[in-house]
């Protein structure tokens, strides 16, 4: 397992280097002049040149690239153009909010998909199964930027139950978490249903029933434990995807997280900040995928990596 972990961690290094280089290359292909944009239309040529020199943007691109890479190796992501704070501190200030949102949406996803998936499998072909199928069908197809405003319309405006935006306590977390996790919950409900239908046909379930166990013990003590294995895979894959989804969800709900910071940095042409945000999201995505791989072997002892 340790050898596998080391190998996987080493494999992420070239991938990270490619990601860093791609993002750096993209940013320097930008048609607009960020300095002129920062200073506004009234700025003189001397002012623009002065600031460009201060920010190091007048140096050759390769030299900027070398400086950036050596900085990264020291954990220095650069200085944000706009408010002169370090990119690392700007990201660290917003990162916890995104983690909180992603964790809440994962919890929502699990608490909805596992019970509804199991109920759906147990009531296969009946009205309840069809109703759950119908709702999850729309959940799969409705993107989060459509689901979010629809939830606000219903829960905030029509019923007046939940706040529209912001980040002040638990009530503010509910709608963004449902928006971010809604699609995953719908897919996972189908997955749990399919997986459970597969498990309850297995011999060990028949044996459990034959020895007189209650249906509840058969389901939750035996079938569900095995039925959840493929769900862990999907959960891990979705966890990485949640970070990308957070960009849209945070924009809808003005949630002060990394996703919103990324979009703000892009619109402000704050290169170092945008670069840092994208790299942080990419790194988190890679590490979450690695953690999922490790988790497989924990939940399924048949999987061995070495």
């Amino acid at each position, binding site marked *: 397992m340790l050898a596998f972990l080391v190998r996987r961690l080493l494999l992420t290094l070239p991938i990270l280097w490619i990601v860093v280089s791609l993002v750096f290359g993209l940013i320097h292909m930008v048609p607009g002049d960020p300095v002129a944009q920062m200073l506004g239309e009234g700025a003189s040529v001397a002012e623009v040149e002065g600031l460009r020199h201060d920010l190091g943007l007048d140096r050759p691109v390769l030299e900027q690239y070398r400086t950036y890479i050596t900085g990264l190796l020291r954990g220095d992501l650069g200085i944000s153009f706009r408010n002169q704070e370090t990119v690392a501190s700007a990201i660290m200030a917003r990162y916890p909010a995104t983690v909180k949102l992603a964790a809440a949406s994962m919890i929502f996803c699990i608490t909805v998909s596992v019970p509804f998936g199991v109920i759906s499998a147990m009531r296969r072909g009946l009205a309840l199964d069809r109703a759950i*199928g119908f709702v999850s*069908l729309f959940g*799969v*197809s*409705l993107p989060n930027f459509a689901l979010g405003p629809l939830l606000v319309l219903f829960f905030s405006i029509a019923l007046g139950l939940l706040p529209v935006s912001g980040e002040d306590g638990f009530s503010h977390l509910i709608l963004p978490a449902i928006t971010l996790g809604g699609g995953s919950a719908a897919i996972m409900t*189908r997955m749990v249903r399919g997986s459970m239908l597969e498990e309850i046909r297995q011999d060990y379930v028949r044996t459990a029933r034959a020895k007189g166990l209650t249906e509840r013990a058969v389901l939750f003590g035996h079938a569900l434990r095995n039925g959840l294995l493929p769900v862990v895979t999907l959960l891990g894959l979705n966890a990485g995807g949640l970070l*990308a989804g957070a960009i849209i969800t945070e924009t809808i709900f003005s949630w002060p997280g990394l996703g919103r910071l990324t979009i703000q940095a892009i619109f402000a042409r704050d290169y170092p900040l945008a670069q840092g945000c994208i790299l942080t*999201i990419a790194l988190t995505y890679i590490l979450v995928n690695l953690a999922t791989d490790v988790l497989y072997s924990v939940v399924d002892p048949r999987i061995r990596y070495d």
Partner: protein
Amino acid sequence: MTEFLRKNKLAAAGLFIVAALTMAALFAPWLAPYDPADQKLMDRLQGPSWKHPFGNDELGRDILSRILWGARVSMRVGATVVLLSGLAGVLIGGFAGYVGGKLDTLVTVVVINSLLAFPGVLFAIALVAFLGQGLDRLIFALTTIGWVGYARLARGQVLKVKTLEFVESARALGASSMRIFAGHILPNIVQPVLVQASVGMAIAILSEASLSFLGLGIAPPTPSWGAMLNDARNHLFDAPHMVVFPSVTLALTVLSFNFLGDALRDWLDPRRESSGTMSNF
């Protein structure tokens, strides 16, 4: 085919909606009751009425007309992205799988794995954000992330097909490598690529809408469903219809392409038990 559609109601529904969308996209200039950019400030934020069945937006533009014109944008982006990324993916992935060796390692381990190592939408956002807005740049960004899926699929299929007997016999008959690849192998991997293309349409349309929602996709005033939803966010209180109609249209579109993908899979491979993402519903 008729028999298949009669038995598979979801496939028939998917096909019907996709056909309707294609019609809307092709004939939007004739079908739309109003000019999608025509501003009637007196009618701003009006709810649905006989005159404007889907209501008006914050500039008094007719939402039904904008949705019909938006279908044009969505279908154009979807079809172009699927065509370009499918072509590039099949050729690159298929060729790498066929040739094998170092080229295969380079393509799969370095390029495909790196591109799959971080979220596609994030990469598309970065591309469009730094390259600038516009239909061609959007298509470029979505193709850049889209071809990888096809390449991985094509490579896997080619690895399977190239060991089959008919390839051996073509080689024994003296066919050149290029002829075997283009004339014998590629036609035999078309089926799974077609299925992927149908799901790919849904993904491309959703990605276009996501980027336009963030203000990074199609530039206004060209109607796009994502941009319409972005405009609607500011009027949730006074004009909820601005959210409802584009949302439902987008959901139906995604759903129908997914149905179509599942149906294609079952139709092209009848031996396979239906197990698509949507067919369980």
